[in-house]
């Protein structure tokens, strides 16, 4: 008896409390969105009643994982589970139910499951299994391929289900690879590529090039540890770049000048980069980082220009339109712009302390779409205000940081890698979902972990977290 109490005490209660508060808070808000004046929160004919059932199922499952199942079972069965989910994903493609334009549900009796939610768990387990093998390192092509294909397979299947949002979650696994030894520059370059692409299209090539150049300067000088010089170069450059187009627009100059600001910037930057590349190759062959940095800068300029050219001259209208819709530049036929606007109105109208539980007008009047699933954060923002939103953010930060910190100090590589996977899955979900409701991200339909209505997502996230809690608990008993 005593031993058992001790073992409870050594569970990581920070995570569990964060989890429980989030789940309960989510349930309350789902009720608030959907209830009538005299609604009973346990009415199983309603969605909030159904959600309660799912909460119970999740809690029982979590309890089983933590108290009953052995910790090592996950590593030993990871490939079997992975294979099972892949089969489910394939089955969904064939037998699945369509909803909201994607085919990602599979019906078992009256219960409907979304296998994509569970593939995150199995992929995490398999990644952890592969990378925790003794002597495994992320160097060399064969090893990298070993890690990448288990990622790409579910991504491809989910893409075929037209569940684009869930695919993006897998991008989070890159961070795990980074932690396990992959060069951070690769991620940085990948990130910059996406950023440059988006900036080019939604603002202008000039802005994209300016951002790229500024980042280059900061990174370049930071690497050489010339921080003061870096600031002395970067700040005036940025100031000059901001005023450069206005200088070109002055009448006298505009009359003489034939080139646009874009062209000037591209030509000058490319010329300088080329000069330094040649110089590095000839005189400082050892300074590989500087050389590579200049090459990346040159490629970046060319990339921006080619994106601009491709977008304006090569792409067909409907292709351009698809990109615009994805980036949220135009409304798609389902009225994404309308949804976003209403969502921001709901959150914005919450003010500092919110309108109070059950008093939200925007969400419960039906102005916000998908209000109990993907847009649940609107209700929180409206009824609980800035304080409530910060409270939720704080819970997520606590949970995620706690997972990362405990994972990082785990002695077992499997626990560490799996922990990072869990943390990143939650992070990407939270960032995309909340970012979408407040206009920071394009509208991508993925649930908010633990809060959104939806059994599959809740159960999947619960299992995911419970496995880590168990692994971490086991870690301390070693």
């Amino acid at each position, binding site marked *: 008896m005593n031993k058992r109490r001790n073992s409870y005490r050594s569970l990581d209660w920070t995570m569990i409390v964060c989890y429980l508060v989030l789940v309960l808070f989510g349930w309350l808000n789902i009720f608030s969105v959907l209830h009538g004046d005299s609604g009973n929160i346990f009415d199983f004919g309603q969605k909030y009643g159904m959600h309660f059932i799912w909460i119970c199922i999740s809690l029982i499952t979590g309890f089983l994982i933590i108290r009953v199942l052995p910790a090592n079972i996950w590593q030993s069965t990871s490939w079997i589970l992975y294979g099972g989910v892949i089969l489910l994903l394939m089955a969904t493609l064939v037998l699945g139910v369509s909803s909201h334009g994607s085919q990602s549900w599979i019906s078992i009796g009256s219960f409907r499951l979304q296998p994509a939610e569970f593939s995150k768990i199995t992929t995490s387990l398999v990644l952890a299994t592969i990378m925790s093998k003794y002597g495994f390192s992320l160097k060399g092509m064969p090893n990298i391929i070993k890690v990448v294909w288990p990622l790409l397979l579910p991504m491809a299947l989910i893409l075929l289900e037209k569940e684009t949002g869930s695919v993006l979650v897998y991008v989070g696994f890159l961070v795990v690879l*980074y932690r396990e030894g992959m060069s*951070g520059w690769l991620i940085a370059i990948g990130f910059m590529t996406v950023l440059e692409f988006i900036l080019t299209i939604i603002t202008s090539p000039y802005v994209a090039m300016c951002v790229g150049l500024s980042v280059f300067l900061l990174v370049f000088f930071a690497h050489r540890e010339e921080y003061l010089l870096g600031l002395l170069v970067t700040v005036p450059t940025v100031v000059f770049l901001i005023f450069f187009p206005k200088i070109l627009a002055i009448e006298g100059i505009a009359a003489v000048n034939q080139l646009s600001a874009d062209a000037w910037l591209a030509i000058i930057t490319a010329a300088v980069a080329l000069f330094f590349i040649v110089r590095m190759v000839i005189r400082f062959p050892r300074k590989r980082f500087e050389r590579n940095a200049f090459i990346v800068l040159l490629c970046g300029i060319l990339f921006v220009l080619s994106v601009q050219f491709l977008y304006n001259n090569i792409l067909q209208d409907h292709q351009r339109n698809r990109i615009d819709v994805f980036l949220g530049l135009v409304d798609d036929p389902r009225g994404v712009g309308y949804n976003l606007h209403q969502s921001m109105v709901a959150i914005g109208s919450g003010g500092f302390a919110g309108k109070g539980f059950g008093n939200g007008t925007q969400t*419960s009047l039906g102005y916000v779409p998908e209000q109990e699933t993907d847009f649940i954060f609107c209700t929180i923002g409206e009824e609980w205000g800035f304080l409530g939103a910060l409270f939720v953010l704080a819970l997520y*930060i606590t949970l995620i940081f706690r997972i990362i910190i405990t994972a990082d100090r785990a002695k077992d590589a499997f626990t560490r890698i799996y922990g990072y996977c869990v943390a990143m899955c939650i992070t990407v979900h939270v960032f995309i979902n909340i970012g979408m409701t*407040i*206009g920071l991200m394009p509208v991508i339909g993925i649930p908010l972990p633990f809060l959104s209505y939806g059994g599959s997502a809740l159960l999947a996230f619960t299992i995911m977290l419970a496995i880590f809690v168990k692994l971490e608990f086991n870690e301390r008993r070693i």
Partner: protein
Amino acid sequence: MKFYLSKRNTILLVLFVIFLIIAIRLFSIQIVDKQYRETAANNALKYVTIYPARGRILDRYGNTLVENKITYDIMVSPRTVEEFDTLAICKIFGLEPEFVKERFASYSANARKIGYGAMPFLKQVSSEQYNAFAERAYLFPGFDAVARTARVYPINAGGNLIGYVSEVDRDYIEAHPDYKSGDYAGKTGLERAYESRLSGEKGYTVYYRDSRGRIKGHYEDGAADKEAVAGGDITTTIDAELQAYGEQLMKNKVGSVVAIEPSTGEILTLISSPGIDVNQLAEINKYYKEISDNPYNPMFNRTVQSAQPPGSVFKLVNGLIGLQEGVLSRETRYPCSRGYTSGSVHVGCHGHPSPINLPQSIAMSCNAYYCYVLRNIMDNRKYANIEESFNKWREYVTSFGFGHKLGSDVPYELGGNVPTVNTYNKLHGKGRWKSLSIISLSIGQGELGCTPLHLANFCATIANRGWFYTPHMIKGDDKYPLDSAYTVKNYPMVDAKYFPLIVEGMNMSVYGDGGTSHVAQVPGVNMCGKTGTAQNPHGDDHSVFICFAPKDNPKIAVAAYIENGGFGATWAAPIASLIVEKYLNGEIAEGTRTELEKRVKNGYLLNKVPVRKRKR
């Protein structure tokens, strides 16, 4: 200076920055930016419009031309409608179930646009139907009755000049942002011209909706409400009785009668025939097709929109110009042997003594006389060439108001047409035309287009001996003083001293030997008149007449233009003189005058009017 970030801390730092960005964004939209709160408030408050009573329209003596009665519009908020008995609602309003079905189908098709708004379900239901509905309104949640005012017309007169009021359409809302769907606005006539004074200001009651969209109660106990401000009455210059009388006279004829009080420029009657019956105005939508299918186009306000050649009436203009230019005097005499011949040009005339002086030429309406007058004006040595003299002539003509909009408050006024040098350069080639080429202008034919309002205004100018006020239909009051455009005298380029000669000729036309206007003699009234017979390519000549009376201190100036009525003395002169008699004497003298009145009222000229295919 070297610090090291472990991979774990790098990741934690990046995540922290991401969450910081989210928190900052939340701070900005929830606390800094107020726009979202306002939008949300608009979503959650329900504004119920209170429609103001529209102002009345009175005639010059204070008689009511237009007033209001209360009707009800049945509105429906589709989102709050619950199941209801379709047949019951059909029974109350006498509808077909299909009608209800169609309405609701269109609501659900526009569900997003409508949102929680209310849509008109049925308009202008009677008070009996409203009472039947109000008793059982609890059976139909989501349905609402809104009191509206509808127009009533106690006197059957002035359909065209009053104009109609109807619901605003999308184009109107775009042009007038203050209006919303469901509002009414004056579309034609006075209702349109004085819309801003008549319409008043809408008010609203603000209700608070709970989260289910149900009305919870008065928002802030009515502090946010706004009362409707009733529209102001307008007093017109119209003489309702005279207007009604004139419309009776114009029945079954196509044309216009315009009467003006010369000393003020006030329009006494403005008749366009066939016109719109006032009983059709109130339910214009119901009659719209019938009206627009009428081949004689009652919508068309001929008094200001039908620009036609003025015929012999225009001789007075040329006479005045000739006098001012010094090429004509009272005793200038010209011969006429049944017309004027020069080279290949021949302008015919009727038999009358010859030669004659200026007043006689007016009285007998001699064509030849004015051919001489026009040629003398055009071939005046004072001017280097025909273009210069023509331009001078045109300046005179337009100074009388012809060839451009007078600026009255009758909506859709047209400017008519006075030809320019270019007109003839195009027609004949530059330098290839001379006074003889434009000889038809002398007798008011050819390229001239004048509206009946132009002619009435010209007649008033003669009555005033040389000046006019811009004609108008509105009386000024303390709150809305008359627009300065209506209080400034306009002086044409002809001196006042030349007008008495013209007046003498017009008086002779009515009373003198060989005068063409004898039919216009009114007992007890010293009348001045001038007939006109405008040739036109579409059938019989148009019958034209202008007159004013009494000769000294004139009280009324009338222009009548009867399409395809033949000689001016046949229809226009009798009608105009009856108007004068009615206005000045109050009744028509027994005997020849009542017989004339009877002939006019029974006159049927519609079959003489060619029905042109109208452009849609």
